[in-house]
């Protein structure tokens, strides 16, 4: 179909398109600028930027050469986020199912509003709460885990100090991403065709029978999308991790030990007193983080949008 627009319409459409394309432009610019400023580091460090172990600004006179590698922080980012997902996904599914199928109708609306509000709690509060309220409890859990499961390398802790570990940071991140995963999952579950659920009951099925046979399979890809959105948040979280984790440059897979960090908290920590060359390294690190979260988010978005379309 060929449409002929009037002059007014053509101007209108151009202006609107320009406005809409701004977001595209901003996203492209972010990637471009971070890459352009960090490319020197990529060139100087080569693959060691990802695989090495050190982050040293050097002595300035060249006696100790500057060496930058985000390896430990990259693994730290992934480790804390995986811990967060491990706890957050089952809890969120339980929360979403409860809100949609178990909660009394009277409090359901209140719960949904509260969930929306919870998703808007600034991450700073999770850091504050984690440090001041939760960490003593988390340390106790960590000590218990290490006491009974310490023979397993993952839970080994030689020093007996349990504060400020990837485990605790991961738990707080889990608390932080539960609202978003719960709300996406609940949304998908609520779109389950009513007649399918009812036919389960009509066949004599129980509530759990209906959930297992209809609701869970129906909502699976939505939950996956929600979990990936949560993962994206956990990967990029700065202040909560900064406040909860000792920044130590070491590949640390003993999640109960007080060592770790993630890329975002590395940037926040080193930014203040960085040399110009180190600053470039931080920008390069930012670029890696940007790519990582963007790819996770794009997959998540594709999954969620595809589910939404398939249903409607």
């Amino acid at each position, binding site marked *: 179909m060929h449409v002929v627009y009037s002059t007014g319409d053509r101007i209108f459409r151009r202006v609107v398109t320009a406005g809409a394309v701004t977001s595209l432009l901003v996203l492209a610019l972010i990637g471009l600028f971070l890459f352009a400023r960090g490319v020197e580091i990529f060139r100087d460090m080569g693959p060691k930027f990802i695989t090495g172990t050190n982050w040293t600004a050097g002595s300035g006179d060249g006696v100790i050469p500057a060496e930058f590698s985000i390896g430990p922080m990259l693994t730290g980012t992934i480790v804390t986020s995986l811990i967060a997902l491990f706890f957050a996904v089952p809890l969120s599914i339980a929360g979403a199912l409860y809100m949609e199928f178990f909660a009394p109708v009277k409090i359901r609306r209140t719960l949904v509003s509260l969930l929306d509000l919870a998703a808007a709690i600034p991450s700073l509060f999770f850091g504050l709460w984690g440090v001041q309220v939760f960490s003593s409890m988390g340390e106790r859990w960590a000590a218990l885990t290490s006491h009974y499961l310490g023979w397993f390398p993952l839970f080994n802790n030689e020093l007996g100090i349990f504060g400020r570990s990837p485990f605790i940071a991961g738990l707080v991140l889990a*608390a932080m991403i539960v609202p978003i995963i719960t709300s996406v999952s609940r949304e998908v579950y609520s779109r389950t065709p009513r007649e399918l659920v009812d036919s389960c009951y009509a066949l004599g099925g129980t509530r759990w029978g209906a959930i297992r046979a209809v609701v869970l399979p129906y909502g699976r890809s939505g939950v996956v999308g929600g979990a990936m959105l949560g993962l994206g948040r956990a990967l*990029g979280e700065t202040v909560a991790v900064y406040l909860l984790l000792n920044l130590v440059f070491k590949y640390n897979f003993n999640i109960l030990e007080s060592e770790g960090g993630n890329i975002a908290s590395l940037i926040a920590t080193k930014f203040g007193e960085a040399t110009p060359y180190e600053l470039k390294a931080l920008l390069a690190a930012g670029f890696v983080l940007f790519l990582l979260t963007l790819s996770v988010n794009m997959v998540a978005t594709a999954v969620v949008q595809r589910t939404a379309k398939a249903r409607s």
Partner: protein
Amino acid sequence: MSTTGELAVDVIEAVPTQPWHKPRAAQRRDVLTYLALAVAAYAIVMVTGVAGPDGWALVFFVEILLLTVLRSRGIGRAKSTNAIVSTVIGAGAVVAFAPWMSIFVSLITKGFHGLYVGYLFNDMRVTTPDDELNMGGVGHALIGSMLMVLIATAITLPLGILSGVYLTEVRGRLTKVVRFVIQSMSGVPSIVAGLFIYTTVIALTGSFSGFAGALALSVLMLPTVARTAEEVLKLVPEDLRAASYALGARQWRSSLMVVLPTVRSGLTTAAILGVARVVGETAPLLLTSLSNNAFKFNPFDGPIASMPMYIFGLLQIGTEYSLNRAWSGSLVLMLIVLALFVTARRLGGKDKR
């Protein structure tokens, strides 16, 4: 005997029953059982090595689970699985909701006693970390946050509305791409937004400023505003557009004068949700606006305080009174977010009616 009298004896009055509701007595019995279990759990926590509220919750859960298992013997496998899984899901939901409930409670209990009348109107110019809680306040941080958020809104609201209009009215070739990019953009880590503004704006102007902070916040705010605007515009009935076209309006007139005015409060909601999303962001401000201790009304003049940076800074200092102030500041910030949310909800309800 009359026939009517005989009939009257046989008539059974129907009492409305609600088989899906538990009878009162059963409800009362349930409450009592749970209370007894809670007390028992407390006793177990007292006499054994299990400790703390988490220990109590665990014991309580195990008790309930045991009770459920015991009760569901002999009612068939499907039903007993249902009962047990329901208990587990309920417990999971409680654990999922516990952290933010705990955050709300801690904000109130820990933040409350740092509040006093002057808290909202004073700055931290002459207050040292060890001064009692009757000095200093968040006035300067409130002003700073307000300036930055206002600038960010002024930038993102038009862009967000244009994106929404593009996705719902213009529907050009890039519709899918724009929608996808906006959605993915909401996942840009806040610190990356800060870095971006740092390498561009601050490298260019040579100084940290509230304006730079506002730009960083805009990057984070745009996706929320654009998405909400799209959602709101989608709700406008197609008839309205058809009617305005039928009256001879061009697309631009129908969009600007018919469609947009009907969703005015919805677009306000979009702005408010965007503000709620960014008002507590710390990481980007860490790299762009930094912080200061005194009132400042010029967003272009060097570092400026903001609510999140105020809290963050006090946390770094870490003295007892500083921590108290951090909690009080957090309480104020949470109340602001809450107020924004309630307003957004009120307005959101308006358009639908």
